[in-house]
């Protein structure tokens, strides 16, 4: 069972990731406003969940938070730097350094081993082969898969593959780990395991942000963002899965 109290004591630090008045419009002839003037701060030490029905804009927001997409309006700040103004090379570097991504479908590279997959996140950073390898191994140890480092994705269960993906996300020691339905493709036992790993990832230097449909997963977090029609409609602090305070929903409806 997840025990939220175990992560209770982590102090909330500086803003690692922020959306400032961000809108995202898809299409040119028929415009779809997937995200409408959203402002959100994510601070180090936070464990937050983003919930909402399909089409509410949470995936769009996750893509923008992960700097995989660019907004139609507004700014995305990674540790204070507005990445929308950067060239691709610089933006990619910042994405790799500041953000770790975990996907619903794991998205491991099939022809690489577990170690190779984790090492992929550490490429082109000026690390020596040995440094890269030892950091990747350390990340795999952290998810209890050190012994399976030479296995390929097809030789692993879904839960194990997702743990490799988590190791890959944390190997670069990012300020924020973003997860998109990380338990969506797993059975309940593996899901518990993965959520516990996420809870453990939280540290004073790192935020964890999970997009989910699963209310149980959402309530493992200490902050819950609810979305509807491209806006944030609720931003609540949780303790033991219960709402303790409702935060200001900035930008919504303005």
């Amino acid at each position: 069972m997840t025990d939220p109290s175990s992560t209770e004591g982590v102090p909330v630090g500086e803003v690692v990731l922020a959306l400032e008045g961000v809108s995202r419009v898809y299409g040119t002839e028929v415009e779809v406003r997937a995200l409408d003037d959203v402002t959100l701060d994510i601070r180090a030490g936070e464990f937050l969940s983003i919930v909402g029905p399909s089409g509410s804009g949470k995936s769009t927001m996750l893509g923008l938070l992960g700097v995989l997409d660019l907004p139609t309006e507004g700014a995305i700040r990674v540790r204070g730097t507005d990445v929308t103004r950067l060239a691709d090379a610089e933006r990619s570097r910042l994405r790799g350094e500041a953000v770790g991504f975990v996907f619903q479908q794991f998205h491991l590279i099939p022809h690489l081993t577990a170690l190779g997959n984790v090492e992929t996140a550490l490429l082109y950073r000026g690390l020596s082969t040995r440094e890269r390898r030892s950091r990747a191994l350390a990340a795999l140890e952290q998810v209890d898969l050190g012994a399976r480092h030479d296995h390929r994705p097809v030789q692993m269960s879904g839960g194990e593959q997702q743990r490799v993906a988590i190791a890959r996300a944390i190997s670069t020691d990012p300020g924020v780990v973003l997860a998109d339905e990380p338990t969506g493709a797993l059975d309940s036992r593996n899901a518990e395991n993965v959520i516990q790993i996420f809870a453990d990832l939280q540290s004073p230097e790192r935020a964890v942000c999970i997009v989910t449909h699963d209310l149980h997963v959402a309530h493992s977090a200490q902050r819950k963002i609810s979305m509807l029609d491209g806006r944030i409609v609720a931003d609540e602090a949780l303790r033991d899965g219960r709402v303790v305070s409702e935060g200001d929903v900035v930008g919504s409806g303005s």
Partner: protein
Amino acid sequence: MRRFRELVGVATAGLTARKVRTLLIMLGPILGVSAIVAAIGINESSKGHLKAKLQELGTDLIVVNASAGLGFGQDPVIEAAAVARVGRLPDVMAVTGTRQLSDIVTVPFAGAEDYYRAFPVPVIATGPELPDTLEVSMVSGRFLNAFDEASGARVAVIGRDLADEYGYLAGEARTIELNGLEYGVVGVLDWVLLEPSMDSAVFLTFASAVADWDLDDPDPSRLYVRAPTNTAMVAKEIPTVVSLGGPDGANASVPTDLLDAQAQVDESLNNLTKMMGGLALIVGGVGIANVMSISVIQRSSEIGIRRALGHSRGTIAVQFLFEALVVGVFGGILGAMVGAGVVWGVASQRGYTMVLSVAGLAGWALVSVGVAVVAGLYPSSKAARLEPLETLRLG
């Protein structure tokens, strides 16, 4: 440097993950380079061979054949006076006439009559200067001389191949039977490269030809003319000099010109092969572009993952270019090796000396690298343009 190593690592991992596909992509450059290398190598080797052969034969020998004039029912001949005129031409060093005699059955040894009746040995009447004119030496003994000519003695010289068949030993006193007449063998002529038929021939003097074989006149039907200078011009003059308005005609040719022409034909054939090799390289390049484009689509999720992990567009493009580069390098090296192997095989089969320049091999391998990289440009830029969210699908 580290980045370079990392790129090579990623590219080779991508290529070794799909070995059959990689091999298929490589087939283009391999075929193209090997075809070009083989064409050039075989061409150079055979040209070297022909050059050596031409040098051996000499390019200054003219062969003159009598052609039918107005006299009917008679074998065309070149009169003695005409031979003398040719000999007086300023560039001519030596002239010798020959005439092949017909209806003579030569029996080198007893009991071989049936065989030699079916496959007659050519019997050639000629003058003492033949070895000098053809620049051929004697294997043993001597050639026919002026005394033989003056006395009409029944002496003969035989070609080297006939001597081998006949079991002739150097210095041995032997006779050879021509239609029942015994001729003393006085020498063996070495191989005549330009006239291989002479290697199994019997040579007689014109005097004995007239005496024994009812030849009307000691006139040759063919002349061998050695003209070290202005060879082509002399060859052109000779027919006029021979006929001088009279009934006798003649054709003159320089046999080595034929070899030269053959070399030219070989050259154009090899140009064709080279062009086809170039075409194969281009088709190979198109193949690389094609297969890699499909590969980019199939690997779009891998590309999205890499982008999400912080690899920039530029890095993705360079990664795919590196894959093309690796294909080009290995395809080029393998192609050069296959091509060199083909040249070696052909050269050793035909007895050529293999001519192959290492710089040429490296050059064509480099061309293959260039073709592969150019072919990789489009798929690489396509890979770089892929948006990560198009392939990763969130939520």
